[in-house]
């Protein structure tokens, strides 16, 4: 595994020490109108372990993807050993000896573990065939070294998330990279597994590998990294020596706020369940959510906060019958429910607005009227007549009420701007007046004015007795709108913020899992 270094190579290495091993300068990247990275810079030396930190949407994943060749930067330069390089694709990245373990995993479900790990760089044997024995031996040694509990011939579909993360790491390491990028790989790992991983990473670093480590567990960075680069809104705002910087300083650079410990860290079991519209007891979803309980009264607006991927989205979808849960009880107005699909939930008076318009809510080619009317369909029988005039007449009222700027009600929804499309989706659900409205990051990528209008809709809806549960990655939105905020961290409710505890400082520290 180690790179044996000759004297000459060492001298060469020392000479190159002057320039950083990898340097990224003034990197910018925009996805449409969204600026993911804006003039960000990053550097790392051989043998160094650097933590790359940032809140939601700060651009750290984009930076990793640029290095991995999954995304191309619009502007800026990348240099390795002082020589400028161009990373035109993921194969170019591998040739530069960069490898990545992705948070969303790059494993193939229909290939065995050893085939997955060695994919793209199988050890050849005689006649250009793959030397299966040599490959297996190589992978077996890595699996032992990283203590991954799986067999060489297992298929990923049969393995738990933590094992898959370990395999993803082993897959990246198997390339013997000079630069190893780890994107939130510890999210699903247990503490003992993390400890072993860290020992292995330290060994890799000692042999000269540069390791970039992205994590949301701030406690970890002090144990593994010597330096932390912090991104905020796509800009690199700080480069901190971790032997000097306190955790509060790190959080300050990530969020622009000094953290304050959440003074109330109670489980919501304390809240009165009497008169609750919705109460959830001990809900668990394998690999995502562990034993979450909460109860919500009529007309409340509840915020579910947290960093991305802490289980809040899965929790919301479990309430809506999309994601099956392994244990727990959901009670709505005193009646125990278990929806196996969203149609049941809608018939029972539950609505769902997703911020991911294109994938989860808009029927792009259908008219604005039909888009608004669609949620009603679940309530009718299959043979109910629905004429165009009836659709248009009833939906025009919604358009007027909510001041959605449209051309004609028969125009396709794709003729509208993103913000107006989202308003149509809001209208769709207000139209059916659900008892409980679930929202997943409803104002993602929406302009400020529209956002304010949407918040207004939600307040009006809540005042008229609708119960609103909203996942949001936007702290201002959570703080402005919610009566109470449940902060998720690693699949558990880490804090409940209410009343005077509902401050940005406390929210920030709870999101990062600080006590």
């Amino acid at each position, binding site marked *: 595994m180690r790179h044996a270094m000759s004297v000459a190579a060492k001298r060469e290495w020392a000479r190159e020490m002057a320039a950083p091993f990898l340097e990224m300068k003034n990197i910018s990247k925009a996805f449409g109108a969204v600026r993911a990275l804006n003039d960000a810079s990053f550097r790392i030396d051989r043998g160094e372990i650097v933590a790359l930190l940032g809140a939601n949407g700060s651009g750290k994943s984009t930076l990793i993807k640029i290095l991995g*060749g999954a995304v191309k930067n619009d502007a800026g330069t990348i240099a390795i050993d002082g020589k400028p390089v161009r990373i035109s694709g993921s194969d170019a990245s591998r040739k530069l000896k960069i490898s990545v373990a992705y948070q969303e995993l790059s494993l193939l*479900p229909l290939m065995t573990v050893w085939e997955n790990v060695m*994919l793209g760089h199988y050890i050849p044997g005689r006649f250009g065939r793959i030397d299966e024995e040599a490959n297996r031996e190589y992978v077996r040694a890595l699996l032992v070294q990283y203590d991954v509990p799986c067999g060489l011939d297992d298929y990923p579909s049969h393995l738990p998330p933590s094992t898959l993360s370990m395999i993803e790491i082993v897959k990246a390491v198997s390339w013997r990279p000079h630069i190893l990028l780890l994107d939130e790989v510890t999210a699903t790992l247990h503490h003992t597994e993390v400890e072993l991983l860290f020992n292995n990473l330290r060994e890799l670093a000692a042999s000269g590998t540069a390791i970039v480590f992205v994590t949301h567990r701030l406690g970890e960075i002090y144990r593994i990294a010597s330096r932390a680069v912090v991104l905020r809104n796509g800009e690199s705002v700080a480069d901190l020596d971790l032997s000097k910087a306190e955790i509060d300083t790190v959080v300050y650079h990530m969020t622009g706020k000094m953290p304050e410990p959440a003074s109330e860290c109670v489980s919501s079991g304390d809240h009165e369940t009497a008169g609750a519209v919705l109460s959830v007891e001990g809900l668990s979803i394998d690999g995502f959510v562990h034993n979450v309980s909460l109860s919500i009264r009529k007309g409340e607006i509840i915020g579910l906060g947290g960093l991305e991927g802490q289980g809040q989205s899965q929790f919301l979808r479990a309430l809506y019958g999309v994601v099956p849960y392994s244990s727990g009880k959901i009670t709505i107005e005193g009646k125990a429910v278990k929806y196996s699909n969203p149609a049941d939930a809608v018939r029972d008076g539950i609505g769902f607005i997703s911020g991911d318009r294109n994938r989860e809510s808009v029927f792009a080619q259908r008219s604005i009227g039909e888009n608004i009317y669609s949620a009603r369909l679940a309530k009718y029988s299959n043979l109910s007549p629905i004429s165009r005039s009836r659709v248009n007449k009833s939906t025009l009222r919604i358009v007027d009420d909510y001041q959605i700027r449209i051309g004609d009600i028969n125009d396709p929804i794709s003729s509208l701007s993103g913000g107006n499309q989202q308003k149509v989706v809001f209208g769709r659900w207000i139209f059916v007046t659900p008892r409980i409205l679930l929202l997943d990051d409803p104002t993602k990528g929406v302009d400020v004015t529209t956002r304010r209008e949407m918040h207004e809709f939600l307040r009006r809806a809540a005042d008229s007795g609708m119960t609103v549960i909203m996942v949001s990655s936007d702290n201002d939105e959570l703080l402005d709108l919610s009566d109470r905020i449940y902060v998720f961290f690693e699949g558990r409710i880490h804090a409940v913020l209410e009343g005077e505890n509902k401050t940005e400082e406390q929210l920030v520290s709870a999101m990062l899992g600080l006590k």
Partner: protein
Amino acid sequence: MEGIKGSLGAQLEGFKRKPEFMGTVLILAIILLNILMQGSAFFKPETMQTLFATALPLVILTMAQVAVLISGNIDLSTGITMSFVNVFAVMMPKNQPWLPMWSAYVIAFLLAVLVGYLNGVLVGVFRIPPMLSTYGMSFIIRGVNLLISDRPQGNVPRELWKVYQGDTFGIPNSLFLLVILVLGWFYIKERKATKEMYALGGDEKATYLTGISTVKTTIRAFTLSGVLVGIAGLAWTLMLASSQPISGDVKTLQSIAAALIGGVLITGGWGTMMCGVLGAFFMVLVNNATSYMFTQFIPSIIPGFSVSTYYQDFAGQIITMLGIVLTIAVSNNAKRMVNLSPAHGR
């Protein structure tokens, strides 16, 4: 003793997880049905010879289809390209007397490879969905076929097709060709490029992120398919012993069905060429069995029995459909396990 039994049991369990499992079960069942009706006559050299010689074009065509299916694509132009090889090889020496016959066969084969390559470029480089690009390609080739030979005509030298349709020591010569192709598959199966084709069929994004060129892999899969279509076209020519411009087109969908029966997943990333071979032979043997059943077996029990041959097709298609349902049920089971993986959700 128990140890041996245990390892046998484990091997059986292992085989159940292999893609060839359902294909093997089905082929054994249909062979059994044939033996039950025909007895030892089924194994007569003439029967075997005819069986292999007529089955082989479809079998090779199915192997060609498997090559693209495992990479997550589909090719609707294979059948008509097979006919193109046939038409070109038979008619070109006739229309262009300066062209020696052997070179017409070689050029026909190379042109089939080129068609496969072009399909790969259309899908890989220009990102045209394979269903569309290869369907379009099939119409272009159909046009070329009809330009060269507007009706079935021509002939193949007797000494050539006699070799293909003959046997050596009671073993059909066409079987040797199949053995060579299967050995060829085992030769390329354990190679980097082949594994990358499987990876591409399994998940394009993950494959790209692993540092593999998805464009090159797509082109490779279609080119491999083109090579096999070329060989299928030559076998088809020797079987027909004449030029038939469009009769191969129906074989495209048959070969896709055969691949699916054999255990190849239409969504990609799963199955081997052996699956294709098993599936194609299953389809041929079903026809064989039903035709024997209606023309000889039932009349021998009920004297004077005689029905339209459409009933044969009817019975044959029902058996084929049952085969597809069985295999898909088994692979759906595998897919459900895949869906349990945590990759779903956000």
